[in-house]
């Protein structure tokens, strides 16, 4: 039994070290004083963290990724909430088809979605890169939005809507007065999941980059190919803490993991 008692923490330690270790190294490297990315870091400084904010392309691509993550997720929710509602509250003809079409982007590799959009939407219809990226990120987040919102609708009794109607509310009014307040947690969770997914997404955006139009992760890869200094490590750390912070807050205040 003692062997087992030691064995279990040991396994766990190794697994967690493998999963978290690389991230910790990146964080440590961002505080390096040296010129190149290395571990252990050479000295301590905040120069690379400071540099992140001065690189013009980082600022632009951060803005672009924020726009895509917030705008794309919002658009996906605007499309996805009614669809989820129809799927969970109505006898919808062809419900399975709708469900499959809406959630298909999750099983097709992002790089293919990006390429297909480039060749058959962007080029023939002369769609701008920014709009194309927006459409792609919306499609990408849509499956998550539908899945999470559907799950929280399933957990809500549907007769409260009838109760609201009998008390004088219209059907639409009942949705906003008694359904929305009760699935708010699910919607916020879907938003956060969509935001993180979209922000970290690379393959979809690979072919959809133009002059000056780049998402944050693509810009980081491009920067790394030219300069191998710790600024990308610093940026990675900052972004990771942003994601973790958002998810942690969501879990704390919403019980995020119930919905995902």
């Amino acid at each position, binding site marked *: 039994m003692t062997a087992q008692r030691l064995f279990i923490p040991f396994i766990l330690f190794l697994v967690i070290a493998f999963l978290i270790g690389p991230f910790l190294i990146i964080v440590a490297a961002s505080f390096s004083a040296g010129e190149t990315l290395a571990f252990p870091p050479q000295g301590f400084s905040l120069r690379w963290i400071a540099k992140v904010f001065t690189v013009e392309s980082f600022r632009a691509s951060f803005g672009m990724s924020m726009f895509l993550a917030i705008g794309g997720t919002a658009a996906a929710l605007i499309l996805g909430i009614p669809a989820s509602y129809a799927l969970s509250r109505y006898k919808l003809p062809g419900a399975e088809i709708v469900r499959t079409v809406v959630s298909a982007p999750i099983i097709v590799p992002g790089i293919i979605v990006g390429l297909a959009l480039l060749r058959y939407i962007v080029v023939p219809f002369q769609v701008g890169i920014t709009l194309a990226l927006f459409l792609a990120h919306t499609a990408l987040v849509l499956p998550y939005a539908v899945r999470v919102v559907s799950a929280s609708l399933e957990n809500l009794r549907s007769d409260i809507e009838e109760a*609201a*109607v009998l008390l004088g509310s219209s059907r639409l009014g009942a949705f906003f007065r008694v359904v929305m307040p009760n699935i708010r947690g699910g919607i916020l969770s879907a938003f956060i999941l969509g935001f993180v997914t979209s922000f970290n997404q690379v393959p979809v955006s690979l072919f959809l980059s133009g002059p000056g139009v780049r998402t944050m992760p693509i810009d980081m890869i491009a920067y790394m190919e030219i300069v191998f200094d710790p600024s990308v490590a610093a940026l990675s750390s900052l972004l990771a803490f942003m994601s973790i912070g958002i998810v942690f807050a969501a879990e704390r205040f919403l019980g995020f993991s119930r919905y995902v």
Partner: protein
Amino acid sequence: MSDASYLSLSKLTLAYGDTPAVPDLDLDIRKGELIALLGPSGCGKTTTMRAIAGLMPVKSGRVSLDGADITRVPANKRAVGLVFQSYALFPHLTVYENVAFGLKLKGMRGNELDAKVQSGLKSVGLSTFANRRPAELSGGQQQRVALARSMVMEPKVLLLDEPLSNLDARLRLEMRTELQRVQKETGVTMIFVTHDQAEALALADRIVVMKAGKIEQIGSPEDIYSRPTSSFVADFVGFENIFQLDQGKLQTSAGLVDLSSHAPSAAGLAWRPRMVTLGSGPYRGTVRGTSFAGDSREYLLDTKLGPIKAEVDASQPAHALGAELAFDLPVERAALLSRFG
């Protein structure tokens, strides 16, 4: 339609998609009545109630209330209240806000609203619970909130879906009294749906027994309890010895038993176990089973008429298994059934 009719269903036909649920239903209800829709699950009672509320589209026929045709009036404009079986309280609102919900939609504000909500809460004894959420209340309390929420709207008709089925025995009695009190005080027309005959008998002024989308019998609790007119109703209210008659004659394995002198036009006769006379009479049976229920004893007899259930006072001497007994089915006490099957 009679003049006294307040809520009237005529030739009402309801269906789920292509599956018919209620065909050609006629029912007239007077103002201030307390009506029970009684029947087993799937008999169309809930569907009918939902159609009255406007939650179920009407395929054909008419629903009229207080002199107006409301067949096509949407549910939110009908002035019909419904207390759901699950209570359907809004989980994100407090008890107070739940009760105020409909009043606010009517445009009521300020002191008037507050007074109305407070009196609604007071009438169900929940004034001190105003700031709680539904999840913090017991089932019985939730139901009273649901009742208050509907009643403050002063509905013309209040519908209740299985109002007592989720409550334990003690709360059941309490709620029954509560509903009768509310009905007496406000004079609201009440219709409740139930599958429990005891509930219907105890609460209703009139009982509508339904089967397969059709009305089997309408009558006072006494009527339904003592004078069922069909074998279905008889069975539903506890007549356990039911016989089909063929031109006044009872067909048994031992041949014909002639009952035509007593009930020439009946399609069937039914006796409660209590109505069977044990110890004397023209028929013979063997005790096959017996069970003791405190102040009474029940016997299951094997007879030429088929199995017979009899119930006698426990003070009478007990009969052993296998004993042969004389018994009688007094025709003058039997319920005469005009329909069978």
